[in-house]
């Protein structure tokens, strides 16, 4: 079987294909018995539409059912499109955090990673990330894409990479079991470890989850070291509320640029905060159109909410490597107009879905 090149799906990394042409090409690729993945070819039989004729526009992606749960059980071999033949260059198998059940898996191939890295490199330049600086990553590695992406980024920007590993599944288990003291100890253990490279190495870029960044901010010594050495703090892997974002930027780390990344294993990547936001702007994430795209919808109707309003985030990943459309994430965000020519929405002030009010307490006088 040979690599059936498609001029649109395989366009040079520095070009952006037209959205509709791209979607049509992707449907041809993923649903042609010669090129599609065993997963999608089998799944297509149960669809009540033909993606190759019925899915032409971004809006048509809504025809797809949300298949993301099926990525928990499927053999990873069946996720690789046949069109890659025997020459698929696998970067890795990445897994979701496992918050909502057994982990979901994706297989990441080299051509997608090159395309994503080319895009991210451009954005990092625009944000003013130094080249040749050392990176410190404090976050999940292991099966999670968080660490995998940072490894790629650091390699491509010519720095050494130090990493402190966080096992998010263990933390969730501890919290689920009510062992908050242990979760706290574990988090302190991570900060303890991050102190060593910060003290002894030329860390110029710190990638960290927001809860750990807030925890790090408790230690005056580490705050001073970060302000002295680090040029860019990248937060990713969890939500950062707007109030904390402003405090971090204006009061804790005034000498450091703070940039957010929004990503997920199920879009096989992350997008970066929009370049050139003003101090009072919300943290806006633009899509990496047409590959990683978002819609902000009313979860009941799955229709877009008006611009500026909060809704639930639907994610799409479409590339030669993977088709994973119409995935309703457990995030909410403000719907923002994307830059011209981009598919879908930009998202801002991403927050967790679960909003629990105060429980009504009846007994007692307090």
């Amino acid at each position, binding site marked *: 079987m040979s690599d059936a090149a498609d001029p649109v799906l395989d366009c040079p990394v520095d070009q952006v294909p037209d959205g509709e042409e791209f979607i049509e090409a992707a449907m041809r690729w993923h649903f042609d018995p010669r090129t599609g993945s065993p997963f999608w070819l089998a799944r297509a039989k149960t669809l009540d539409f033909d993606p190759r004729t019925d899915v032409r526009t971004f809006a048509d992606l809504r025809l797809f059912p949300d298949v993301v749960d099926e990525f928990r059980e499927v053999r990873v071999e069946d996720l690789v499109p046949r069109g890659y033949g025997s020459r698929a260059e696998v970067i890795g198998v990445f897994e979701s955090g496992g918050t909502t059940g057994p982990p979901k898996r994706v297989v990441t191939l080299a051509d997608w990673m090159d395309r994503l890295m080319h895009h991210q490199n451009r954005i990092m330049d625009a944000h003013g990330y130094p080249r040749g600086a050392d990176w410190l990553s404090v976050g999940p590695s292991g099966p999670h894409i968080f660490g995998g992406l940072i490894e790629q980024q650091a390699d491509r920007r010519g720095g050494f990479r130090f990493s402190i590993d966080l096992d998010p599944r263990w933390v969730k288990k501890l919290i689920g079991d009510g062992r908050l003291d242990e979760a706290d100890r574990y988090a302190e253990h991570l900060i303890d470890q991050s102190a060593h490279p910060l003290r002894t190495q030329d860390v110029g870029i710190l990638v960290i989850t927001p809860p750990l960044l807030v925890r790090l901010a408790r230690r005056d010594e580490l705050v001073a070291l970060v302000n002295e050495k680090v040029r860019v703090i990248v937060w990713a892997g969890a939500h950062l509320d707007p109030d904390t974002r402003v405090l971090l930027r204006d009061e804790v780390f005034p000498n450091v640029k703070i940039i957010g990344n929004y990503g997920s294993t199920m879009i096989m990547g992350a997008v970066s905060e929009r370049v050139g936001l003003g101090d009072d702007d919300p943290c806006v994430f633009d899509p990496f159109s047409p590959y990683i795209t978002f819609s902000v919808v009313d979860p009941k109707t799955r229709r877009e909410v008006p611009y500026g309003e909060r809704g639930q985030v639907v994610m799409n990943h479409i590339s030669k490597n993977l088709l994973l459309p119409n995935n309703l994430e457990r995030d909410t965000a403000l719907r923002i107009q994307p830059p011209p020519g981009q598919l879908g929405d930009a998202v801002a002030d991403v927050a967790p879905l679960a909003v629990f009010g105060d429980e009504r307490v*009846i007994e007692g006088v307090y």
Partner: protein
Amino acid sequence: MTALSIEPGRLDALGPTGPYRTRSRSTVPDLAGNPVAELSLVPRLYVQRTMAALHRARTLPPGERDEALARAGRLFATGPVNGLSAEHYQRMVSRVSGMPISVVRAATDAIARSAAEAYGSTRWARPYGAVDDWRDPATREGRALWVRRGDVFAVHAAGNHPAVHTLWLEALALGYRVAVRPSRREPFTPHRLITALREAGFADDQVVFLPADHAVADDIIRGADLAMVYGGEDVTRKYGRHADVLPQGPGRSKILITGEDWAPHLDVVVDSVSAQGGTACVNTTAVFAAGDPRPLAEAVAERLSAIPSLPPADDDAVLPARSLADARAVEKYLFDRVGDAEILLGGDGIVDDLGDGIGVLRPAVMLVDRADASQTGIELSFPCVWVAPWSPGDGVEPLKDTLVLTAITRDGELIDRLMAEPTISNVYIGDQPTHWMAPWVPHDGYLAEFLMRTKGVIRA
């Protein structure tokens, strides 16, 4: 009724460098559901930094603290604070909490009085052998010095009654820096009080107002040396074993009448159940009476049934109001737990619909047939009382776990046993309502017992 502004007010956090307005806010509604204020909710990072600032802050000298507290109390009770008159403040509290306006007015005065007396009140708790200053000549022969156990005190306050905010003023008087996390239901009182304290001379980094979500609330405690937490059984369970946290749990105050002639004591019973709208931890939850308790229960029911249902803003209102949905939930909670008790008052429902989505909680009187009936521990935030039989054979057991016990008895031996019982915090003997308080009488122990310790000092 005074016209209230339609625009929701703005309640910023009051942090170590002044007011702090967040993007994340919670709306404080009145009982009808209209937004009355926008309360800023601070994030964890702000809590961390604020608590660190409190630790770094200095403490005012004792004399200045005493004067500033008294000034703040006067300002709180009489002055405009943040442009809000005392009258307007009181109407606001009544409007969001449903507390009768007269109770809010009395609480305002109580807060002013407590502020003026806070420093003096702490003197009652100082051990006889202790002095305040190592320079005291007595230390030449060896003495105890009375010192703080820490520097920073945190309070998770309750919103059931404004006078909850009298107690922590003693911590300020003793030189603690204090962080108050308000109730989200009624944040007006601590906001006004802390603003007044700041105007009266306390620095921004000496007393702070930190409205925060549940997720962040524990960080306030963690960042303090000592903390006091208001709540129910859950709070007592969560913090009961922490030496550095003082839970203010259920009150479950009780009255015991050991004589058969209860009639002369009816006023005390009715007053103890219904004063302050029945919303305080010192309101009576259960009455234990010798002989047949039914006539007493019926008499209490008759007296309580005469209280009119009035909107909380009415000068004559006595009963608390709630949003209709909340009131119905309280009613259901009660009815679900009545069990084998006989309802003498309130059986047809305890909610009086005032319209506008507001319901008054009418008194409830229940009769149980034995002293150890578990219902007597059910404490609800309105005039709600369980009446039980008691005989000497029942002893102290059913009277345990009590904030205030009024014992109307001449049995000195029984009183001895009540005094010795560790789970009864206060024993009032004779016709004294359970809600009686005085600055020199401890509420649940002196707060200073928790805040202070002695240190041995001698100067050779």
